């Protein structure tokens, strides 16, 4: 008990709050800027944190980790460029809303969703860490494979204009993800003798190229056609209907609560991560759509679903770390690094050995959530002005951020050229209605799916009867089968009514 009070007291000292604030500011900025993203930012921040006290260091890193997710929605809504890969789904409804002159509504739905999701995830961490971590341990290779199959059924929900082409793009994403060392045998696959490809195509190069730079090509095209006389409606600002009031909040709140739970659940399980959470949460929200809600054309709930789940993942992914000393995500692994630098080795006895520090960290996580709300609310007013900046400035600046961001992740020009190559590919895919979002889902899910499948084949000795010993996996598979049937029905409708779905 005294550890708890002392810890929360530590969290509320001005110095600690200052570091959380700095982290939130930096994280928000990284989140807003396409091309720079969370793992890169944390990796840059780690050496800085070597010189701080343990609590300040962790507070700083937590601020970055949390706020970068919330910031990612900003450019997704305003210029259709996700600031973070997880915000790819936010674009689907956020940008149409902005085009309808409802940018502020979308940004506020994203912000409140982010903060609530974050708080739910944080509370789960503080109150239920040990039981949830023990549950997460039960998710073995078989259960994971079932979960991955379930996740793949969401591709159909996000396929865009054409179901078959959306599926093809998703599978192509999985194919690109097989490049690199095969995890089971350690032999290279499709690396064309490039050492730089042994770890696979750099994630940032793919996401930035596919989503950000290719979008800049598309907008360049629009800019030229506008000048040529063909009018595309520009993003309108300050429309009178652009208010986020109590009514809008009540409209999105059920989605936010559901997505918080989805995000927390996905965060607990190592290996899934924020991108999967936002895809899944959006897919589920779409499946529960009420009549009249048109996802993909500017539905506020779509924005809230994606952003809430993405942010709930970050604190939830710390659960295995604090309960068992095992990292459940890249952010958690980086936090371990920061703690060990200061002589705190995360392990099962973290609470007994460093109780005060851990409660201090919990305290800073709540502080970070509140600061995120403040920074986000103030930032919103400032960033909404982005829509006034002419495209002829936005496009070149984003292009530069893409180039520099791809370089900074691994300090390699190779990644920059790969990024540019994928931008060209992404543009062509867009032009021929092959969804870039499903490509990304496939790319993100592919490696985990393959790994779990291989693990499953080994631990079950390729005996299907072994599945009977895994009731959780069977339940997940049943849900996945239902989901697939559901989307096939929707899919055949989509096919028969042409590609204008």
């Amino acid at each position, binding site marked *: 008990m005294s550890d708890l009070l002392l810890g929360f007291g530590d969290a509320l000292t001005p110095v600690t709050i200052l570091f959380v604030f700095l982290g939130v500011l930096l994280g928000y900025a990284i989140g807003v800027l396409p091309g720079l993203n969370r793992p890169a930012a944390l*990796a*840059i921040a*780690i*050496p800085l944190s*070597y010189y701080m006290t343990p609590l300040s260091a962790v507070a700083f890193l937590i601020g970055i980790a949390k706020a970068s997710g919330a910031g990612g929605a900003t450019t997704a809504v305003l210029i259709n460029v996700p600031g973070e890969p997880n915000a790819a789904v936010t674009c689907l409804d956020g940008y149409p809303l902005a085009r309808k002159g409802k940018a502020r509504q979308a940004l506020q739905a994203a912000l409140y969703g982010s903060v609530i999701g974050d708080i739910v995830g944080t509370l789960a961490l503080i109150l239920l860490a040990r039981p949830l971590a023990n549950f997460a*341990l*039960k*998710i*073995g*290779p078989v259960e994971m494979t079932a979960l991955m199959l379930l996740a793949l059924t969401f591709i159909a929900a996000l396929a865009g204009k054409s179901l078959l082409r959306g599926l093809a793009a998703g599978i192509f994403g999985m194919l690109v993800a097989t490049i690199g*060392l095969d*995890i*089971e045998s*350690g*032999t*290279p696959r499709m690396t064309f*003798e490039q*050492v*730089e490809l*042994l*770890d696979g195509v750099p994630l940032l190069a793919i996401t930035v190229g596919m989503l950000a730079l290719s979008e800049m090509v598309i907008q360049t095209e629009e800019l030229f056609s506008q000048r040529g006389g063909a009018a595309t409606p520009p993003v309108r600002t300050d429309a009178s209907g652009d208010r986020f009031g109590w009514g809008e909040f009540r409209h999105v709140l059920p989605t936010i609560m559901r997505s918080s739970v989805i995000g927390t659940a996905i965060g607990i399980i*190592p*290996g899934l991560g924020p991108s999967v959470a936002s895809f899944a949460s959006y897919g589920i929200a779409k499946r529960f759509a009420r009549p009249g809600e048109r996802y993909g054309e500017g539905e506020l709930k779509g924005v809230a679903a994606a952003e809430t789940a993405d942010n709930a993942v970050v604190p939830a992914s710390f659960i*295995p770390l604090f309960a*068992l*000393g*095992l*990292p459940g995500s890249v952010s958690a*692994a*980086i936090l*371990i*690094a*920061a703690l*060990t*630098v200061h*002589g705190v*080795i*995360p*392990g*099962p*006895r973290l609470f007994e050995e460093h109780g005060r520090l851990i409660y201090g960290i919990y305290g800073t996580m709540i502080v970070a959530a509140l600061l995120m709300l403040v920074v986000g609310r103030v930032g919103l007013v400032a960033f909404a002005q982005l829509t006034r900046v002419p495209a002829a400035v936005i496009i070149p600046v984003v292009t530069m951020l893409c180039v520099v961001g791809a370089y900074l992740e*691994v*300090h*390699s*020009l190779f990644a920059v050229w790969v990024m540019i190559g994928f931008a060209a590919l992404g543009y062509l895919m867009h032009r021929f209605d092959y969804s870039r979002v499903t490509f990304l889902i496939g790319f993100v899910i592919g490696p985990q799916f393959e*790994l779990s499948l*291989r*693990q499953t084949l*080994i*631990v079950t000795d390729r005996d299907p009867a072994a599945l009977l010993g895994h009731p959780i996996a069977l339940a997940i598979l049943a849900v996945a089968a239902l989901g697939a049937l559901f989307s096939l029905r929707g899919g055949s409708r989509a096919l028969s009514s042409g590609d204008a779905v």
Partner: protein
Amino acid sequence: MRKRLALMGAAVFLLGQPAAQAAWPEKPVTVTVGFGAGGTTDVVARAVADLVSKKLGQPVIVENRPGAGGAVAATALTKLPADGYNLVATTSTTITLDPQVTKLGFSIDDFTYVAATGEFPEAFIALPKSGWKTLKDAIEASKASGGKTTYASSTSLDRMITAALGKKTGLQLVPVPTRSGAEVVTQVMGGHTPLGYSSGAYYPQAKSGEVAALAVLGEKRLKGLPNVPTLKELGYGLSSVNLILFVAPKGLPADVAKPLYAAFAAAAADPSIVELMEKRSLNDFVATGDELAKTIASQSEGFKQLLEVSK
């Protein structure tokens, strides 16, 4: 980094004679870590670099260039001049084992071996409720129940070791691939695989008793886990030593090598480094220069033989 390279090239070209006359070092030294920020290799490299910088009187810049288990950084280093301003910090298996398993752009002869600081505490682990005290118990029990068992694996090194171990004991050890040592521990703690091979992530859990270490892979026992026998003590005649290694491109001039080795030797002996290694559960292992080169050569030869055996 390329920029620095280009400038350096220009300087060499303009001067005709690289700075051979002046006393090394007359500008900052760059250490490129072959792994991401915050990993064991990175933390140790940064701490050592800090002390080396004090000894040399020049800043030492630490950069991270993760990829392919250190191979990306090592490959890049072979293309840089051997002037003492470019070093790479990685694990010794990056150089002694990986080129033998995967086609890479370097071999053991492409480097000058500057220093090794610390040895990874690799071990076989299991759940305590299995009741196994040492790896021998596990092997006997698994042999009795079918002659085949799975274990959570994360490197090509452990696959090679277990293949050789399987040959010796007649027990088939099937690797379940995972991405990291932490995932190995997760699989074992979740009860999804009966055994695991982890190079260090297991240590806090082993200390607290959540997992049991059944055998360590080094030549001697770990200070932190004195009751865990080595594989050799158990009579399997196998060992694997993975070191944190600092290398330079091959052909480092003697007038550069001498002060450089001395600086690393002094840094590695510093009490703060000794304490750091203890905290990160690394065995203290310090070697520099020719002595280290011999160790590396014998490691590489050992792996070659192991590969033959495990085929």
